């Protein structure tokens, strides 16, 4: 099995790609760069411009906002998409806490795939909506009565 196919199989376990079929995943894998950062490597720095989406395949990372840890990430989690969707500075710093394997998708290919792989954009929208709802920022339809 070649490297791309292996990566496509691993992406199957990532929730962001759960609606994609194997052919979609092979396309995503073709445009993905694999990196293997050691522990305590800053992958994303708060305030900097975003240029990539990161998917944690192995290892772990912590998310800090204003030097306060706000989340721990494990295999299958992804981060960095907000700064790609809306070109604002990174909202948090993400640092590996163990030797990790990350799949990285750059800004251009992220946007191309959002346009050309509809299951990916559908799932991303669904997850963003869920996060907004969970954060309580927007009332649910039940709360407003429709």
């Amino acid at each position, binding site marked *: 099995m070649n490297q791309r196919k292996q990566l496509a199989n691993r992406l199957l376990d990532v929730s962001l790609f759960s609606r994609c079929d194997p052919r979609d995943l092979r396309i995503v894998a073709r*445009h993905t760069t694999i990196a293997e*950062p050691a522990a305590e490597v800053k992958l994303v720095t708060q305030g900097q411009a975003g240029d990539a989406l990161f998917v944690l395949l192995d290892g772990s990372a912590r998310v800090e906002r204003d030097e306060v840890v706000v989340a721990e990430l494990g295999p299958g989690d992804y981060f960095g998409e907000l700064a790609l969707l809306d070109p604002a500075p990174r909202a948090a710093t993400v640092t590996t806490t163990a030797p990790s394997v990350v799949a990285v998708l750059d800004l*251009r*290919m992220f*946007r191309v795939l959002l346009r050309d792989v509809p299951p990916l954009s559908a799932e991303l929208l669904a997850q963003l909506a869920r996060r907004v709802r969970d954060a309580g920022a927007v009332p649910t339809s039940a709360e407003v009565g429709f």
Partner: protein
Amino acid sequence: MLGTFAVLSLLAVLIEVSIFAVNLTTALGLGLAIDYSLLIVARYREELAADRTVEHALRRTLQTAGRTVVFSAATVAASLVALVVFPVVYLRSFAYAGVIVVTVAAASALVVLPALLAWIGPRLAPRTPPRLPTTAPATASATDPEPFWGRQARRVLRRPALWAIGSAVVLAALAIPFAGVDPGRVDDRALPADASARRATDDLREHFSFGEANPIAVFAPGADPDDVDTLVSYEQAVLAIPGVVRVDSTIGFTRSDSRVPPRAYNERFRSDVGTWFSVVSWYDPDDPRVDDVVAALRATTGPYDEVLVGGPLAVIGDTVDVVVGRVPLALAIVAAITFTLLFLLTGSPLLALKAVVLNVASLTATFGALVWVFQDGHLSDLLGFTPTGEVDVFTPILMFCIAFGLSMDYEVFVLARVKEEYDLTGSNRLAIVNGLARTGGLVTAAAVVLTIVFVAIATSGVAVVKMLGAGLALAVLIDAFVVRATLTPALLALAGPLNWWAPRSLRRFHLRWGVWETDPLEVPS
């Protein structure tokens, strides 16, 4: 170019290579070397301006601009390979030389130039930072001064139909004379008026029966050179052809009304494998009616089963026929290769088609202007040449190789950037403006430098070389200023979202197998 000459010399040991391959090597090699070097140096300076070290900047330059050079070189080389369909050594040499020169130019830009840049170090960094950011041009602030070509693109986008029609009219006006092209072969009149060969031939043409100096050779395989009755029968048939004045053979010098007995001179028509005839025409060799005489000679076998017509005049006619006859096939191959490669670059069938059509339009306009000047003789006094009423059949093909290569280069530079901008912004309008803003200066600089070189070539006293230089200068100017600066943005604007449309299956194919020129990611480790 030295590298290409070396490889061509080696190739000449194995196969026949035309001396004119050297012309192609010089012009195309110089053009591509300038284009590729400008692309690499421009990108390298951008990287240095982003505070990268020399090594880091070079690595990123080769990962981005280097990839563009490889793709462009592959496109140009693959297209030039189509010239092998011409069964003429001269033109096949263009294919060999073209592929070699493209390969050497690309290799030099990717190996020698980076070594030089590393040696020069950070001194090439621009004093002021680039006016557009390298990664997200669409997000440039409104206060950034926009390059000239960005402003030009905005001008075109305000009235795209008007610019498209205006540019098309210019191209069409230039192209119209091409409809009357009369392909032929170069003769003494291509030389300067004071050249010895030119003066001698001019005198022959003016004061003597010039047809005598250019007889047509007819070979009758297996014919008996002593069979007088058969020889006479054949000669009478030949003399009945309009335009034939005399036939020389083993039986003497025969006109329709008389015959001079043979002399020792006539022994040259005798051979064990047959006999041959020297047919003298009334017509000058540059008279188009000579072609009719050659055709009639081929059709007139008389008492023989077969006759073969040769000699310089027949060779000229055959060469023109075989070259002109294969042009559609060669063009179809070039178009198919170009379309396929540009689709792999852009993922857009329409953009790939537009590139092919515009390249053809641009070259047709150039050829039209050449016909008007060099065939019809306009501006001949100003440019200092003698018009012959024909265009040398090989020159447009040589020019096509060079101009097409350069044109494809510019196309790849521009389209790669426009596509990148569209991918980043999703906006056709921003893609056009930013794509042109980021490549217009480069294309223009390359075009201006090349035009100066080609104009220098056009000062040659030899009309064919003059035509090559003038044609290439015109081709580069038309391509850079009419096609890239106005027609391309206008058509992109008019097509709108259709530029980026492709059937789903083709979109997926492109995503999987296409060529993607992305900035290298730098993930901390």
